[in-house]
C-alpha cells in the first residue's frame, strides 16, 4: 500500500525534476550565448520595442489603479488606530518593494511570455526554426538571447515607471478623496522612501524580466505540433512565468529584507 502510494508519487516527481533540469540547461545555454558573437542587434532592438515600450501602457494602468486602491486600503486600515498619516510612506514602500515589480512582472508575463511562446511555437511548427539551422543560424542565439536580454533590461525601467505612476495614483486619491495636503503627501513620500526600497524593486524587475522571456522562449521552442501544441505552449509559458515570478519574489524578499 505504502509502496504503491510512493510509486504513484514517483513518476510525477521524476517528471518535475526532469523539467526543472531541462529549464536550467536551457537557461544556462541562453546565458552562455549572451556574451559570445554573433550579436543580433536588430533583433535586440526589436525585442526592446516589443517587450519594453509596448508594455508601458499596461504596466502604467496597472500601477495607477493599484496605487489608488492601496491608498484607500491603508487609509481605511490605518484609521482603526489613528495612523492615517502613514498612507504616503506605505503606498511608496508597497509600490516600490512589492506591488510595482510583482504586478508589473505578472502583467508583462501575461502579455510577453504568451506572445513569445506563440511566435516561437508557430515558427517551430512551420519549420522556420529548421530553416534557421539550415541557414547556419543558431535558433537559440537568434530567437532566445535577444528576447531574454531585452526583457531583463527593460523590466527594471518598466518597474521604475510603474513605481512612479503607482505613487502618483496614491497621491491623486490622497489629495482628492482622503483630504491630504498635496505638498505634505509628497514630502512624506520622499522623506520615508529609501534608495534600497527602489533598488530592490528594480533588481526584482530584472529577475522577473529574465523569467518571463526565458519561459516564453523555452515553451515556444519545445512546442508540440499543430495549433493545439502552440496553444498549450502559450498557456504553459504564462502559468510557469507567473508562478516562478511569485516564487522568486518570495526568495528575493527573504534575501533582501529578512534581517
Amino acid at each position, binding site marked *: 500500500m505504502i509502496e504503491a502510494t510512493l510509486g504513484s508519487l514517483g513518476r510525477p516527481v521524476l517528471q518535475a525534476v526532469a523539467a526543472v533540469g531541462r529549464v536550467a540547461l536551457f537557461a544556462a545555454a541562453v546565458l552562455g550565448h549572451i556574451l559570445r558573437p*554573433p550579436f543580433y542587434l536588430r533583433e535586440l532592438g526589436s525585442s526592446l520595442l516589443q517587450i519594453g515600450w509596448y508594455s508601458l501602457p499596461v504596466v502604467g494602468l496597472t500601477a495607477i489603479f493599484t496605487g489608488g486602491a492601496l491608498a484607500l486600503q491603508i487609509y481605511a486600515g490605518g484609521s482603526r488606530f489613528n495612523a492615517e498619516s502613514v498612507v504616503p510612506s506605505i503606498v511608496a514602500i508597497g509600490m516600490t518593494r512589492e506591488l510595482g515589480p510583482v504586478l508589473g512582472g505578472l502583467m508583462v508575463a501575461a502579455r510577453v511570455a504568451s506572445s513569445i511562446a506563440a511566435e516561437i511555437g508557430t*515558427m517551430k511548427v*512551420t519549420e522556420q526554426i*529548421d*530553416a534557421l*539551422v*539550415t*541557414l*547556419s543560424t543558431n535558433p537559440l542565439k537568434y530567437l532566445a538571447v535577444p528576447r531574454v536580454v531585452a526583457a531583463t533590461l527593460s523590466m527594471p525601467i518598466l518597474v521604475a515607471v510603474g513605481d512612479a505612476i503607482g505613487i502618483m495614483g496614491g497621491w491623486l486619491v490622497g489629495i482628492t478623496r482622503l483630504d491630504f495636503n498635496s505638498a505634505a503627501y509628497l514630502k512624506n513620500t520622499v522623506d520615508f522612501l529609501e534608495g534600497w526600497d527602489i533598488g530592490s524593486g528594480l533588481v526584482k524587475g530584472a529577475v522577473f524580466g529574465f523569467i518571463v522571456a526565458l519561459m516564453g522562449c523555452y515553451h515556444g521552442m519545445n512546442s508540440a505540433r499543430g495549433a493545439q501544441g502552440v496553444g498549450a505552449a502559450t498557456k504553459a509559458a504564462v502559468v510557469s512565468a507567473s508562478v516562478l515570478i511569485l516564487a522568486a519574489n518570495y526568495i528575493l524578499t527573504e534575501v533582501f529584507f529578512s534581517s
Partner: protein
Amino acid sequence: MIELHDVHKRFGENCVLQGVNLSIASGTSMVIIGGSGTGKSVLLKSVLGLVRPDSGTITLDGQDVTKGDRDAFLARFGMLFQGGALFDSLRVWENVAFRLVRGPKALPKAQAREIAIEKLRRVGLKPETADLFPAELSGGMQKRVGLARAIAAQPEIIFFDEPTTGLDPIMAGVINDLIREIVTEMGATAMTITHDMSSVRAIADNVAMLHGGVIRWSGPVSDLDATEDPYVQQFIHGRAEGPIAAIR
C-alpha cells in the same frame, strides 16, 4: 557525393528508418519517392543534421556529416521547405538575403538586396515583391521565394522537401521546371522528396523509393516505368490494390 550507410531512426515505438543505404553522386538530381509517413522527410533532415540518426553513417564527400565545422558544412546547402518556412517578421528580400547578410562573409545590405532581387527575378518574381512580407504572398509565390532563398548563396547541394505540395498543376509545373533549370544551371547536387510523379519525371536523374524504412528500389528515372517491382508499380500508377497497404 552524399552517402548513407545503414541509417536507422526510430521515434518511440515507430521505427521510421531501418537501414537506409543510398548514394547520390555529385551534380545529379536524386528524387526520393514514397508514401506519406514513410520517413522521407526524416531521411532528408538526417543528412542536414536536423534529426540525429540512432545508428549508421552519413557522409558528404567522405566526411561524416556529424563531425567537423557545422557552419561550413551547412554553408554548402540550400533547402526549400515544404511550406516555404519563410520568416514572417522579415520582408521577402530579407528572407532571400538572410544568409548573405550574416556570418563571416556578410555582404553590405545594399549588395545583398541587389542579389536578392536578382534571385527573385530568376524565379519569376518582380522586384516589387522584394518589399512585401511573406503573409502578403500566395502559396506559389511563397514557394518561389523559398526557392530564391535556397539558391541565394550559390549552394553546392540543394534539398527540396515536397516542392509542389499544395500548388495547382500549372504552378506545380512552373516550380518543377524552375528546379530543373536551376539545378542544371548551377551544376548542383539535388535531393528532392516528393510523392508527386510529375515532379519526379521533371526533376529526377535518379529515383529511389523508400518503403518500410529501407530503399526498396533505386535507379535512373528512365528505368522507373520498366521496373517490375510491384511496390514501385503500385506507387507510380497510384493503385489502391497492391503490396502497399492503402490504409496506414
